[in-house]
């Protein structure tokens, strides 16, 4: 190995360890008895594992429900945001409006993400209350869709713009309608972009804490982040249940990202999908 190569690998190893160490700690805590969790010196490998925290979290308490809520809310809001946002992005990428209205519109859409989200917390609560949607999953879906839309529009606009106009024009002259051309020709080509955007939307929705806290009150609608944080009580911090829940919370996102990673790489590198 060349000297430069060695340094590169060394740095990468250190960085990986630094990034993965907390995750490893989290996983091991979830399997350790309470007495082992904060033993000094720390027990990295030599402990007898237990499943009691998982049982506690999912059977005795309602983490299963939180997981379900998180899944439903994240998936639903991602799908809504992708559909609405992609259609908007397609129009913005393809059609010209007079007086540069399309450019102004795109900027305005992005601007809705430029202020701190917490500013809208109270107004949104009031709106949801008037709609009688407080403490429902629907309210979270609506809010998360709203927050994901600008991101989807901006990401997908770039991907749509990369598809050569020629292809759609060829589809039109071949006899297809605009929507047909979109469905059969354009969408397959922006699929990597959709996958990358979907992953980001899912992660944002999955991890979202503030609005879940504000808009949900009981187990019916509470999501994982709020549920896990709720393990911090005045009687003590239930590290075991928290970490068990956190480990389980990681799994769906990881699984999805692994499933779409082929598309993710292409989408993230904004590479040209040249046929």
């Amino acid at each position, binding site marked *: 190995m060349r000297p430069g190569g060695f340094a590169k690998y060394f740095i990468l190893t250190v960085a990986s360890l630094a990034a993965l160490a907390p995750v490893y700690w989290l996983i091991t805590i979830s399997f350790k008895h309470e007495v082992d969790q904060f033993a000094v010196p720390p027990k990295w490998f030599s402990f007898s594992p237990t499943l009691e925290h998982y049982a506690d979290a999912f059977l005795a308490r309602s983490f299963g429900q939180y997981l379900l809520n998180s899944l439903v809310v994240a998936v639903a809001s991602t799908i809504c945001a992708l559909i609405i946002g992609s259609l908007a992005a397609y129009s913005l990428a393809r059609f010209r409006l007079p007086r540069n209205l399309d450019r102004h519109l795109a900027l305005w859409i992005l601007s809705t993400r430029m202020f701190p989200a917490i500013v809208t917390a109270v107004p949104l609560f009031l709106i949801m209350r008037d709609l009688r949607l407080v403490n429902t999953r629907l309210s979270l879906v609506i809010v998360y869709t709203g927050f994901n839309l600008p991101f989807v529009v901006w990401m997908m606009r770039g991907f749509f713009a990369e598809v*050569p106009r*020629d*292809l759609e*024009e*060829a*589809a*039109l*002259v*071949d*006899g*297809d*309608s605009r929507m*047909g051309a979109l469905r*059969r*020709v354009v969408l*397959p*080509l922006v699929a990597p972009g959709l996958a990358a955007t979907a992953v980001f939307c899912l992660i944002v929705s999955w991890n979202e804490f503030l609005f879940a806290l504000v808009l949900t009150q009981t187990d019916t609608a509470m999501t994982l982040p709020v549920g896990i944080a709720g393990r911090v009580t005045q009687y003590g911090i239930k590290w075991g249940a928290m970490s068990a829940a956190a480990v389980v919370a990681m799994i769906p996102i990881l699984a999805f990202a692994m499933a779409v990673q082929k598309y993710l790489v292409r989408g993230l590198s904004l590479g040209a*999908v*040249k*046929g």
Partner: protein
Amino acid sequence: MGILLQNITKRYAVSVVDDLSLEINDGEFVVLLGPSGCGKTTTLRMIAGLEQPSSGEILIDGQRVNDLPPQKRDVAMVFQSYALYPHMTVAENIAYPLRVRKLAPTEIQTQVNQTAAMLEIESLLSRRPRELSGGERQRVALARAIVRHPKAFLMDEPLSNLDAKLRLQMRGELKRLQRQLGTTTVYVTHDQAEAMTLGHRVAVMNKGQLQQFAVPLEIYRRPANRFVAEFVGSPSMNFIDGRIDPEMRCFTADGLRLPLDIGTTQSGASNADQQPGRLRSSFEEITLGLRPENIEVSNAQQTGMIPGTVYVTELMGSETFVFLDLASQRLIARAASDFRAEPGATVWVRLDLRESHFFDQVTGDRLSLPPSITTPQPN
């Protein structure tokens, strides 16, 4: 029948296409020829329906199609970039127009195979566009256009992305294919060789305006103006600015004096002469045009020849191009393949004015000379 363009204008900030009128007959192969930016591709796209004319009418088979979207016009387009769908196989690409029309899958299969056989691409049917060479992609694009038997083919410089040898080969195949299918074709190119060899008729365009619309030979022999004369023909026509002396019946330019009373063909307005040129009363500011093949070059002096100096020669193998200076004019001449001369050498030149062309120096329009100047006078 066919395609009719009536006073088509397309305006952005300037007129990209300016008052263009063309009548294309059923089954005819018409080439829109011109330099980049002359409006030929815009015109093609307006026929396809991908762009709307600012004013004017487009009729296909007698039906006004201005308001008809591209999918309903029943024309097929071959793009310069081929525009093959990258995520579909060759078979799926060719099948696309039929699938969109909801034909039965078995029927689609038959048509695709037939068309692939016609273009000799059956072996490529399961491949993707990115695995194909340029020539193969071009055939797939053609197949996709042919498979639905449209009213017209619209081709936008389909050969320009191919290397020279393949271009020549595909040119011949395209011509044979079109003659065999008999489909009306509008073909856009900036390559005058393609235009001359492929088209039944050629429409030469410049800066959005139609310059001349005629059969290739007419365009070559009787160009309507200096632009057409210069654009068509390789190597390009030679131009000499000067004036005509009506009494002496000769053309004079810097250091040159060329007699005209030898019965020039272009002034003998026959019935077939569609571009007789304008007659002028003044003989100032006239440009003489002469094609390289009408300039005879020789190492030995012969009667009626004038001396010139060689600038450079290009040995093409089948012939030799001679760049020479005559008085203060730089001319190109075609010589036999065995002609040799060193730069700076003196050669003897005869300009065959029977095949000469005259243009107005200012407007570029073709001019006719009155017989009084050109008819040989009995001595």
